[in-house]
């Protein structure tokens, strides 16, 4: 089931939540709507579900206009951040709910419902919880039940609103890998909302980056990460260092460091700014000819990674660097030492910077 969103607008009073969004989502795709809070991603998801009405614009499922359809007729599965399991019902009753509220002539028999619910509980690997109440399950288990409940009605599209947002880090990582595998198994067109770039990069087939109600970039995780369309996307997808630079004929100069930037081959010398990710910086103990002289200000070792904060010699600018712990040990640098750094790669945008 493909989804097409055409010129959708939504305001809450003076606040523009969704600003003229156009987007089409292909059948069977797992798409992430990624953005900071207040970027309109949840509102857009709720408009697709029919939980919110757009002020203008159209929503189509498989080229059928469903803008005016009530949420209960759209056939969407919706998973909420805080699960929204019905507390007074057992797990079995929760999953069966969508089938038992069907009009009599479409409602499966009791035996069919039981069979289907058990199959779904097996799919989410929680068949042993059928008789329990939601209060007796952990957060991760509740969210899997919520997913089974949403799938029970065989939704045309599955919509997930920050599905892992309320879970702790380890369960979250487990569950998103599990969701990825589940999606490979059932191939239902899915859209999920997240503010966690790592989650989006890991789970999604396609990432739609949103900011202030509009779409900033739309592409595969690799495209979005490696070729960010603009500074916002670059900054949002992971940590970055910002350097002021001069750009001239395919050469970018940061301090006394020269980097090739073939995308800006034409034009006179002008101001630009270069983004360098923390792991794209090389560190040297001895002076290198085109390196920046820095002072090692803070070292933290987080598991296998050494995170350094260094101050540049001239501008006292703070730069974040990440490198494998082993490599850092070999450098034999201590806090307070002088070192030289060299960006390996940078993404250069013209203009004055943000």
């Amino acid at each position, binding site marked *: 089931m493909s989804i097409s969103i055409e010129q959708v607008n939504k305001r809450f009073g003076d606040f523009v939540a969704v600003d003229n969004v156009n987007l089409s989502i292909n059948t069977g795709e797992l798409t992430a709507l990624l953005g900071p809070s207040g970027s309109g991603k949840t509102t857009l998801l709720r408009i697709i579900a029919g*939980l919110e009405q757009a002020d203008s614009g159209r929503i189509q499922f498989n080229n059928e206009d469903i803008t005016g359809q009530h949420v209960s007729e759209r056939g969407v599965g919706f998973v909420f951040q805080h699960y929204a399991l019905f507390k007074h019902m057992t797990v079995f009753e929760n999953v069966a709910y969508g089938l038992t509220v069907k009009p009599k002539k479409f409602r499966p028999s009791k035996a069919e419902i039981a069979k289907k619910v058990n199959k779904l509980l097996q799919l989410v690997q929680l068949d042993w919880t059928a008789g329990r*109440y939601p*209060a007796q399950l952990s957060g991760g288990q509740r969210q899997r039940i919520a997913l089974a409940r949403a799938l029970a009605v065989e939704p045309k599209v599955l919509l997930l609103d920050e599905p892992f947002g309320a879970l702790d880090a380890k369960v979250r990582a487990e569950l998103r890998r599990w969701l990825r595998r589940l999606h490979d198994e059932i191939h239902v067109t899915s859209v999920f909302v997240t503010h966690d770039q790592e989650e989006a990069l890991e789970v999604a087939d396609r990432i739609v980056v949103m900011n202030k109600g509009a779409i900033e970039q739309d592409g595969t995780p690799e495209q979005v990460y490696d070729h960010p369309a603009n500074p916002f996307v670059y900054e949002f997808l992971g940590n970055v260092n910002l350097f002021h630079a001069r750009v001239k004929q395919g050469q970018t100069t940061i301090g006394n460091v020269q980097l090739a930037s073939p995308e800006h081959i034409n034009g006179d010398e002008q101001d630009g700014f270069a983004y360098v990710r923390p792991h794209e910086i090389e560190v040297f103990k001895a002076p290198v000819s085109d390196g920046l002289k820095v002072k090692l200000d803070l070292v933290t070792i987080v598991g296998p990674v050494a995170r350094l904060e260094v101050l540049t010699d001239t501008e006292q600018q703070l730069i974040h660097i990440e490198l494998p712990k082993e490599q850092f040990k070999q450098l034999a640098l201590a806090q307070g030492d002088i070192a030289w750094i060299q960006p390996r790669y940078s993404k250069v945008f013209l203009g004055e910077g943000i």
Partner: protein
Amino acid sequence: MNWYRSFSSKRVLPGFGISLGSSLFFISLVILLPITGLIVQTAELSWAQYWAIISDPRVVATYKVTLSAALVASAFNLFFGLLMAWILTRYRFPGRILLDGLMDLPFALPTAVAGLTLAAVFSTQGWFGQYLALWDIKVSYTWLGIVLAMIFTSVPFVVRSVQPVLEEFGPEYEEASATLGASPWQTFFRIILPEIKPALLTGTALSFTRSLGEFGAVIFIAGNLPWQTEVTSLMIFVRLQEFDYAGASAIASVVLLASLILLFIINGIQQRYQHITGGVK
């Protein structure tokens, strides 16, 4: 000594002894002592005398009037109170805060004032009463008036019990139900009602208990015709006027017993539901 130490010292909150002691003292003073007095006074009677007093036909007639009126009033409050709580929590409209405040008026208003006012507006010459009289419906000085007074004085119990539960019961449950294809009615009966049922039952039972004992508002509108519109609490008052303290206590003990049984039922309801929905967090 171990238990003593664990209770008296090394607590984060100090003052366990004095706070528990003073609470128990006041509970004894205002609740236990009067109840004991009631029992002692009733104990002056033999079982036969006791039975004769509480099964006196005129008294039995008051049980019927009180019970039937309280039942109808609390049944009405179940629906009306739920409706009010629903409106106050689910919609935003001008004057909502005022309406919310007005809900407590029956508690704040002296019940005698409420009774007098209701009797006036519903009497056959009153604002509403004159139109109801056209349909041959009399409210003031009839059983219907008793029901009305009970409704008025006890509706806040239902509203104030249900309102916080509805407020806490986020819209995502209703949304979840709708996305699963349920109609608004299915959502109400299968999702919302089970969730608020304990609070609704508690509120209704409290409203019923209050109605059983309502005196001030009822006597002004009831007309107090023996056999027809006398309530049980009025009977107690009548016995006291006759200096028949033992008789008054005997009838009061019946009301007390009924209220106690109801309170236990209310507690039972609450515990049962807590067990299911909040047992393990």
